[in-house]
């Protein structure tokens, strides 16, 4: 009985906690971004994060994109062959990869690789007093640790996704021509004719948003981690899970905005 009576209270507390967390994350992100326009700037740290984000994530993103393009070609062929619409496969692969799969899968892969590493690094710095030490050395941790990582995420993921767009379409092309018997010239011509600038713009806009989400979640959970090794582990898990969920949610929001124009 008590549990039933307490239900609205528990629900209210959960909602308040959620709103508090959202507010805290937004404030954290805005504070971090505000440091991008106020000197001093840490170019060396930005470059290190950018390379880690873009260059070292390239293999995993490239493989994901190629295989996704291949699977889409194969799946759509088996489905579309029933209706004699196999000529649309080049277009389906292109739309699927460029508008959805490349940005979303690249975002998820980078969340697992870079977001987790950011959370673990900042979390370890927090629990070993390194972040407090920065303050005693006339350095704002938000400016030194967070701002360069946010900028790296914002700029690096669009580059990665551009590569993933090309490789994903190439994956579909390989399966279509090598296995399904499509003419290579016609397949490429169909793809290029169907491709619109707005598709690529949407892909890159999503990538920029997802890159920011990955960096923000990695930094936020790492920066606010507590309680030693277990806290760092929890921060890492939270960074990956929250970034993944937010990527999927924002994917819907951005797609909705795109079609409602």
């Amino acid at each position, binding site marked *: 009985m008590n549990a039933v009576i307490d239900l609205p209270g528990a629900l209210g507390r959960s909602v308040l906690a959620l709103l508090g967390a959202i507010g805290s994350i937004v404030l954290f992100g805005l504070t971090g971004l505000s440091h991008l326009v106020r000197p001093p700037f840490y170019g060396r740290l930005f470059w290190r994060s950018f390379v880690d984000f873009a260059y070292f994530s390239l293999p995993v993103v490239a493989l994901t994109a190629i295989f996704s393009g291949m699977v889409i070609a194969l799946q759509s062929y088996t489905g579309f062959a029933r209706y004699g619409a196999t000529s649309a496969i080049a277009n389906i692969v292109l739309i699927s990869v460029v508008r959805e799969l490349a940005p979303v899968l690249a975002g998820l892969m980078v969340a697992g690789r870079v977001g987790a590493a950011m959370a673990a*690094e900042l979390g370890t710095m927090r629990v070993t*007093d*390194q972040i407090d030490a920065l*303050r*005693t050395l006339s350095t704002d941790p938000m400016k030194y640790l967070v701002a360069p990582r946010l900028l790296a995420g914002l700029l690096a993921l669009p580059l990665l996704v551009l590569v993933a767009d090309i490789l994903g379409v190439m994956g579909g092309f390989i399966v279509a021509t090598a296995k399904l018997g499509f003419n290579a010239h016609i397949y490429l011509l169909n793809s290029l004719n169907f491709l619109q600038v707005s598709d690529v713009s949407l892909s890159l806009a999503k990538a920029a948003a997802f890159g920011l989400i990955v960096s923000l979640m990695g930094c936020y959970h790492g920066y606010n981690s507590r309680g030693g090794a277990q806290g760092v582990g929890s921060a890492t898990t939270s960074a990956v899970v929250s970034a993944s969920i937010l990527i999927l949610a924002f994917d819907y929001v951005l797609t909705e905005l795109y079609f409602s124009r």
Partner: protein
Amino acid sequence: MSFAASPSNGTQAAPGKAVPKIRIRGLCKAFGDKLVLDGVDLDVMTATSMVVIGGSGSGKSVLLKCILGIIEADSGTIEIDGQDLAGLSPRARAAKRSAIGMLFQNAALFDSLPVWENVAFGVMAEGASRAQGRARAVDVLAQVGLDASVCDLSPAELSGGMQKRVGLARAIAAHPGILFFDEPTTGLDPIMGAVIDGLIVDCVKRLGSTAIAITHDMASAARIGDEAAMLFRGRVVWQGPAANLLESGNALVDQFTHGRRDGPIQMELRK
């Protein structure tokens, strides 16, 4: 029963009396229901080394972090050179706090940077070039007994004692007017502990700095401190010359410094 000690100075400095370098009045800080600092009053005179002792959880580290601005106090005042930090602009407050060097309990060296960049971090943050920073790091490392061969090592490649020395070098690199030491000898063998204490005393005397060290180690307290204070239940219960620590005449201090199980301090053990 109140354990609070009357501060040697009143809340207003008497005319003609020297202004303490650090003056704390009524400092309170709670984490949820747990009151960690409950009206701390403490004066530290210029060029004096103050040792703060107290049991685990008595609020020693929180006190230092409040002065540094890492933790915001709930109430009370912190004055440096007679200026209340709360009354200063954020920029002026940051400038006051940038004159404080800190040696953390576990040294807190930056894993991602080599030793020399750790040492020169504060100097380079103030505008020194990398070449100037490296030269300064070599100079300061020599002052703590380390040669230039450690410059390019990573902190993970150093022993605990060497990490403390690098942490000390980082704390003094920018010639701070105030130095804080958080458990400087924890985790070190007695000989290395004595070496670190000796280096701390040398550095403080050479720089003419005002120092606050928090420690459980009575031998370390006697070596480092000119003055001593004891924190208990979030308040300063005794303050006096460090040389009197072992014969303070205060029951709390006597029990703590002699490590007696029985006395007014009762450890909360779950049976």
